């Protein structure tokens, strides 16, 4: 059971940024963050994931202040299974093929990847036909599913996804939604996504609108 408590966090970039935000979520919940472009949805996910120190406020994970009590190396370690973060944009490594992109987080740390888990996730995400392809050779929908696979093999307890279906055609978006729905159906998992996608908004357990 994970409890994530966000307390009065704010982050500013000149005139833009994230205003003071509070909420608490726990395992089994499915939170959708909405708001206009530039309101700070991505910033909020960056802060929750431990990738960006807020200007003010605190983020507690199971009672521990991740910026106050954890070193940066420990926050990075959180993203090795505790928190999975699918960032927006093209974040696959262009020099590596799909299977290497999926396995590299573990392998670069000198760990062996569980081949069965990898095969099972690849099968489930319907990307087994492109494992030898390079990121530049696959479609936008496939790209997003590879990003998902790269995170899902770490079996994260908390999954953060930034605009997971933006710029995807309906068929590809549906596949991504199904996978995330499946993840959210697990009572031990916590899913937080930032989105404008109404389908997500209709299915989530909670909504957080950022002004």
């Amino acid at each position, binding site marked *: 059971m994970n409890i994530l408590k966000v307390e009065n966090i704010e982050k500013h970039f000149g005139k833009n940024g994230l205003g003071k935000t509070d909420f608490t979520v726990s395992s089994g919940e499915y939170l959708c963050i909405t708001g206009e472009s530039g309101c700070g949805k*991505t*910033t909020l996910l960056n802060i929750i994931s431990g*990738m960006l120190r807020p200007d003010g406020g605190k983020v507690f994970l199971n009672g521990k202040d991740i910026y106050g009590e954890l070193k940066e190396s420990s926050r*990075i370690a959180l*993203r090795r299974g505790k928190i999975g973060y699918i*960032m927006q944009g093209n974040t696959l*490594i262009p*020099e590596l093929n799909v299977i290497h992109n999926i396995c590299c*987080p573990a392998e670069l*740390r000198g760990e062996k990847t569980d081949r069965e888990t990898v095969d099972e996730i690849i099968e489930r995400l319907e990307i087994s036909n492109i494992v030898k392809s390079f990121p530049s050779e696959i479609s936008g929908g496939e790209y997003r599913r590879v990003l998902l696979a790269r995170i899902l093999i770490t079996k994260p307890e908390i999954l953060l996804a930034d605009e997971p279906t933006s710029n995807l055609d309906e068929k590809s978006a549906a596949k991504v939604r199904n996978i995330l729905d499946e993840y959210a159906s697990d009572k031990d998992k916590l899913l937080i996504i930032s989105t404008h996608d109404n389908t997500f908004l209709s299915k989530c357990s909670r909504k957080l609108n950022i002004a």
Partner: protein
Amino acid sequence: MVTVSKFAIENIINEKFRSILFITFFLITTVSVFMTDFFIDNMNAGLKYINKQHLADIMVVPSGYDKSAKEALFKGTACTVSFEKDPVSQIRLLEDVEAVSPELYLATLTVECCTAGGVQVIAIDPGTDFTVGKLLKSNKIKSLGVKNVVAGSDVGLSKGEKFDIYGNSFDVIGVLEETGTGYDKSVFISYDAANPITTSKKYKNIFSGERDLVSTVMVNLKKNADAEKTRRMIEQLNNGEGIKAYTPDSMVSELTEKIGIFKDISNIMNVFVVTVSLAAVFTLVSVNTEKRKNRIGSLLSVGISKWTIIRIFMNEYVYLFITGFTAGIILVLIIAYSLNPTIRQVLPVTYKSADVFSVFFNILKTFAVTIIMLAASVLFSFVEILKKEPAQLAEEQV
């Protein structure tokens, strides 16, 4: 399996142009630093040899030909010079003079062996000569007959070969070890072999048909003698006409000065090359880091530590550095050894191959200079990676 090393190699392969630029700058720096030290060491090795061998206390040459005689002695530039009036007997009579070794320089045209620009033939009296004679002894050559020659290390002759000069054929009975002086490019005969040449009618226009001609006189002094005083006395012989005398210090100091100037110019060039390369590699590293910030952010987002990311960069730069450095060292060694005769010809000073230890030390020194250059270039980028928040590195994700 994706390892740090494999990741670095993929980066090198996928950015060929940038990789070639890196290698080129490391190669240029290596060549510049190593070549300078290598050549200066070789020049100093020649100088050291002269000092160690102590050829003579005073060298006497015909005035007006002193440059030719010195070039023949230090560089082996072929020349034919002789005193109008032989000073040997007068020098021998001077109070502090212990021994006198006359030598005759006879230049030949280019011969069939591989030496360019003619060969300097030096005639000596093998029984009394204390300069070349000393070399013959140290090379275990006991006698130099009328039909024999001994070759310097750089002439291109081997023991047992025939050597033809001025219509006479000689047997090569030995090859001297390298000295770094003009002796390396000289062939030695005895006065007994030279006199028939200089007195022959055929070469009268060159040698005036005279015997026992003298080009230089090597003088050894008695113990505790004042070399400078004797040098001045020698220059006053023949009413102070036609004689120039040098002590080893004055000859060597000239060489030392030339090597010093070469070293200064080379050092200035090296500073320039290293600075330009440092700026270029620094820029390349900075551009590279900037270009890859998104990827760094991506790797951090999946739990890869900053240290692992820095290791990827370090591996990549070290591979590029080693390639450029190794290529540079090999290039200098190929140039130095394949163009050795030409380099000796071009350089205005003595030149002798330095020992392996010196070469190895210079490789280590060049390695230190170039690795410091690499470290200085990458330090700023690595500090930036370590200092910034992961989301700041993946700027477009903020």
